[in-house]
């Protein structure tokens, strides 16, 4: 289905069938001028809808597939199984290249998080905290349909309205809403990473699903210790991120048993974390690092008689991470 068709089907609904000739003429004038309005309107509704479905798909779908992930000339391929039972998503990873390795985990979705899904909140104004919409910081464009992993997808371009965040190209499965391809672009339009399914199926054999569940239930995966919910938006134990890129809000906060405190900020699509580490690591210098789309800015801050190693880590431009780090303060002054 092409964008033009949505607008027409939208208008079809309003086409009067039993009106006088005059009215029909007027109506056709309206039809001539309407497509511009109709297209834009239905597009943004469509994109919001697709992103909303994409966000819930990962929490609700069982699937199995092979994807590749590449950055800076590095390519990895992974066979993945995703099973949802009682609202908890279980994952099994099997790396197809290099050392034979597996990973199992279940999503700690919701643990320590601000209630509601971030992306969903951003595209749905009626959801919790939805006032600051994705639309304010990105231009969401539906660019028709395509094909990825032998499935029909919607192609969505997500263009940042400022240079404080990256842009995305998403390919979202038309049937299920699963994200099948994602490109991340910097402000130079260079692709920093590509994630793409080669093959995906939405029927997971029961025995495979049970095997994954059994492996996960048998052990590990610690649940984090969450911070009290009365922590204010960008403050933690006296720490303050005095500057945040517009649209970024606290998504979660936690403190681990070594005393390392974490604040996570998201604008609905891009995410960065700030770690406040009072433990050892005295010998580590202040560095800036990057891998693929992820940057890290480490700085040292003297606070309350301790030397903290503060790290800003996330999929944001290095200038953004640097600026966030530069404005981190201890105390209220």
């Amino acid at each position: 289905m092409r964008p033009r068709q949505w607008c027409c089907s939208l208008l079809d609904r309003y086409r009067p069938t039993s009106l006088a000739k005059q009215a029909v003429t007027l109506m056709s004038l309206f039809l001539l001028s309407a497509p511009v309005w109709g297209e834009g309107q239905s597009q943004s509704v469509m994109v919001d809808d697709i992103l909303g479905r994409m966000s819930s798909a990962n929490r609700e779908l069982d699937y199995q597939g092979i994807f590749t992930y590449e950055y800076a000339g590095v390519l990895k391929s992974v066979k993945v199984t995703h099973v949802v039972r009682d609202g908890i998503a279980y994952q099994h990873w099997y790396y197809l290249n290099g050392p034979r390795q597996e990973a199992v985990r279940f999503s700690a979705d919701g643990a320590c998080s601000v209630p509601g899904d971030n992306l969903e909140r951003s595209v749905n104004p009626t959801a919790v905290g939805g006032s600051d919409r994705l639309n304010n910081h990105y231009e969401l464009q539906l660019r028709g349909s395509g094909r990825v992993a032998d499935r029909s997808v919607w192609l969505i371009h997500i263009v940042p309205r400022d240079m404080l965040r990256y842009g995305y190209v998403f390919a979202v499965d038309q049937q299920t809403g699963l994200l099948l391809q994602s490109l991340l672009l910097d402000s130079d339009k260079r692709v920093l990473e590509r994630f793409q399914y080669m093959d995906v199926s939405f029927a997971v054999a029961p025995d495979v699903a049970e095997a994954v569940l059994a492996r996960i239930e048998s052990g590990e995966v610690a649940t984090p210790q969450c911070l009290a919910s009365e922590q204010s938006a960008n403050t933690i134990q006296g720490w303050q991120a005095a500057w945040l890129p517009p649209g970024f809000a606290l998504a979660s906060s936690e403190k681990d048993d070594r005393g390392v405190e974490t604040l996570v900020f998201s604008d609905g699509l891009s995410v960065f974390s700030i770690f406040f580490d009072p433990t050892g690591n005295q010998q580590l210098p202040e560095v800036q690092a990057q891998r693929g789309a992820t940057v890290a800015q480490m700085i040292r801050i003297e606070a309350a008689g301790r030397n903290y190693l503060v790290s800003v880590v996330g999929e944001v431009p290095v200038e953004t991470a640097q600026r966030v780090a530069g404005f981190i303060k201890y105390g209220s002054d």
Partner: protein
Amino acid sequence: MGDKSMRIQETLSAMMDNEATELDTRRVLRELDEDGELRSAWHRYHLASSAMHRELPPRIVDLSARISAAIADEQAPSSTFSRFLQPLSKVAVAATVAAVAVLGVQQLQLAGVPGTGSAQQVASTLPVAPQAERDSSATSGPQFQLPAGFDLPPVAGRVASTESKYAVEPRPVTIMQQVPQAQPDRETQLEIQAYLNSMMKRHTEKASSSASQGMLPYARLPQEINNAP
């Protein structure tokens, strides 16, 4: 402490060349407030730069001390006259500030004048912080085909990386820039990488529940740490 002031001085000279990062600049500005020695270094660097541009006035007069003294000596307006005097004293202060501003502008212009190979001269005379190696190999993998029409605002910054595309085994994390500027030894590098990897893993766990992009956040993790507890 000596180490720290050395570092600050290096950053200062980087600032002279417009090479300092925003983070560095903030740090230096904070330090300038408290460190008289640093202020005089700042002064000297500008003088040196002006000299190299042959743009020094015949006589150099440093007004800053006198202006500070004048401001300090200013009688605090008091009692009955205060209301009438206040505007006046404001003018006086404004005048002194204007003098500073004029000087400041002149100096900035001098520092910013392009030409006559001055950059090299400055670089060889002053302790200029070595530049982090900049190349674009972070993105020089296989050429991706961009979908047509992806419109982004024009570039202001660039992303730098020292990652070599010829590395046999890609390092988990690339250290782009380091303050202080000396290259860390192998051991420190490994420690930094281990530390960054652990931070990245935690970030990923958080990001996956905040970003709704399914498997993607985990895909970013290096294989060897993805399954570590």
